């Protein structure tokens, strides 16, 4: 029996094939995500038993449960999941187009650039609505990511050179962010600092909503272009020989990755290492074909941030450790492991 199932549509000129491993893995991950969400919604200073959480979500809980769950905790959990999903998909795309297993939104400086854009808006335009952060983050992410890619290019893209240049660009963006924060004495600096660490603390529906259109465009576009990722992941000449418009596809996919990564940064700050780890875990689960890898990586990423937030809230309660600290504490050793594995 083949590993693949071909799916063809009689009416439309569309067909694609799916790795048989993908649907069960996605279902299992979805189940875990739901269970974790229920657990996360019930945990906090005001604990709610899981049964009540489910009843409240379905619209049948008491009034105070309704307020705690649906107004306070649900948007936070959704933001955590979606941010992880966006970062992980951006990471998977970047790893494929740079053919670099170490690429990710933070390693390429994209997150730091997006953070700079968002902090600049926070500090210089204190009255701007939350939704203004996303375009600013997008501009910053595009500039930093583009600069890294351009400077890392030298007659071809070299994986480690790209990482080193990305480290430099991230440091420069971080320095500019510090400068921006030093220009003001306002209270928002403390807020911006916590936000920069990567945190879903106090996220409400007004933070979730501005993220949705960007993800609504970015995620389907990424899934539609997944097969181009498979080709680009091969050798450059081979991809061209297979009829891929390499530069065009790479540019489009880069733009999609920046959109997803920046939307995530605008919503929750720079959550380190999620975009790096999730694609690798997903590759272990469903193999390297991007049609299945992208959604799986997205689910894994969402689960990671959800879990990191839950751990951060319960580890040292009542102190909240930002989710970004948790992901970095787990992710940096994983990065080292990737770096030194069989090389």
């Amino acid at each position, binding site marked *: 029996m083949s590993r693949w199932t071909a799916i063809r549509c009689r009416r439309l000129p569309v067909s694609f094939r799916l790795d048989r491993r993908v649907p069960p893995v996605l279902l299992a991950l979805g189940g875990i995500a739901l269970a974790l969400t229920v657990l996360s919604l019930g945990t906090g200073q005001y604990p709610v038993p899981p049964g009540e959480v489910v009843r409240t979500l379905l619209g049948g809980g008491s009034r105070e449960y309704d307020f705690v769950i649906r107004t306070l905790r649900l948007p936070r959990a959704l933001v955590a999941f979606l941010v992880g999903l966006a970062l992980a998909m951006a990471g998977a795309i970047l790893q494929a187009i740079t053919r670099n297993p170490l690429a990710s939104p933070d390693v390429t400086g994209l997150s730091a650039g997006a953070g700079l854009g968002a902090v600049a808006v926070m500090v210089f335009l204190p009255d701007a609505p939350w939704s203004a952060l996303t375009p600013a983050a997008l501009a910053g992410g595009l500039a930093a990511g583009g600069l890294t890619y351009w400077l890392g290019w030298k007659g071809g893209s070299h994986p480690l*050179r790209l990482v*080193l240049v990305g480290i430099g660009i991230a440091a*420069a963006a971080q320095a500019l962010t510090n400068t921006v924060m030093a220009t003001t004495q306002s209270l928002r600096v403390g807020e911006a600092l916590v936000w920069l660490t990567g945190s879903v603390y106090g996220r409400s529906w007004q933070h979730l909503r501005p993220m949705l259109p960007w993800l609504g465009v970015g995620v389907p576009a990424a899934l539609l272009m997944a097969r181009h990722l498979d080709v680009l992941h091969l050798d450059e000449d081979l991809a061209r020989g297979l009829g891929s418009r390499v530069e065009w596809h790479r540019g489009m996919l880069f733009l999609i990755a920046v959109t997803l990564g920046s939307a995530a940064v605008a919503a929750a700050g720079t959550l380190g290492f999620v975009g790096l780890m999730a694609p690798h875990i997903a590759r272990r689960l469903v193999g390297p074909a991007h049609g299945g890898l992208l959604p799986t990586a997205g689910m894994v990423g969402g689960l990671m941030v959800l879990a990191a937030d839950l751990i951060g809230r319960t580890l040292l309660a009542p102190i909240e450790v930002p989710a970004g600290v948790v992901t970095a504490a787990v992710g940096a050793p994983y990065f080292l492991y990737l770096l030194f594995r069989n090389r």
Partner: protein
Amino acid sequence: MYALFRSRPGLGLLAGLGLLVLAFGISLASGLQAIPIGTVLEALTAFDGSPAHLVVRSIRLPRTLIAMAVGGCLGVAGTLTQALTRNPLAAPGTLGINAGATLAVAAGLYLLGTPSLHTLAWLAFLGAAAAAGAVYALANLGRGGVTPLRLTLAGAAMAGFLTALTQGVLVASERTLDEIRLWLAGSVAGRDPEVLRGLLPYMLVGLALALGLGRPLNALSLGEEVARGLGQRTGWVKAAGAAAVVLLAGSAVAAAGPIGFLGLAVPHLSRWIVGPDYRWVLPYSGVLGAILLILADVGARLIIRPGEAPVGVVTALLGVPFFIALARREVGRR
């Protein structure tokens, strides 16, 4: 000029000291309120308590002295790191040594309340030593031993990890956050002159140790086997060098926070001026580091007037292009 310094390195060092005095004067004279150089000299020789004299003596003099000491330490520490690892991308900042010291100091402030300066200094040394040891051990993992590239990447990952932990400590304690926010970005402003007085002994021991290593490092730069063949006990040289790096980087961090990219750029500039002889590269790096950090601090005062940027921001903005150019050159040859 450059051939002259290579054949007569002592002359170049004298010129460097002259430039250092000049930079010192510029630093005392400039800021939000520019003070003419004559008044600056009067403030130093015939203090009369006027506002301009007070600004020079109680604000600008201490910060310039700290910038000078920290810059010198970082320049020498960077040179030692590059010589010991034979890695052009190595520096206390890029290898995570600064980040280790920073985490130890932040944790100390959080757990111990208000520890004494000496406790903080020893915490910084401990953090720096632990980070350096961990990075070196990590880079040794896997096949093929330590390559420059792997050491740098291991250091970057280590720095990211330690910085995240530092942020965790800061968020856990709001008080620590307010106290050390400026210090964390790397700053020489508003430091108590006592800080420098307390740390100076450690810095001097580190500098003396480093300057004594010039000749053995020359042998080591030919390669470990050659050095051993020449009769050198390379293990001792490396241990002494590592101890000096820990003392210098640790006290620099304790005084001014993690200032990045200075330790990376200075050794390259000194080697470019005076050639590869470490007996001269080390003192040149000290003088050059001091000049550059003083000037960077002047820049930090002027770029976002009337506010003031942390000096670590200026060194990062100037150092990053340097780092990227080096990365492109080093990893370009495949």
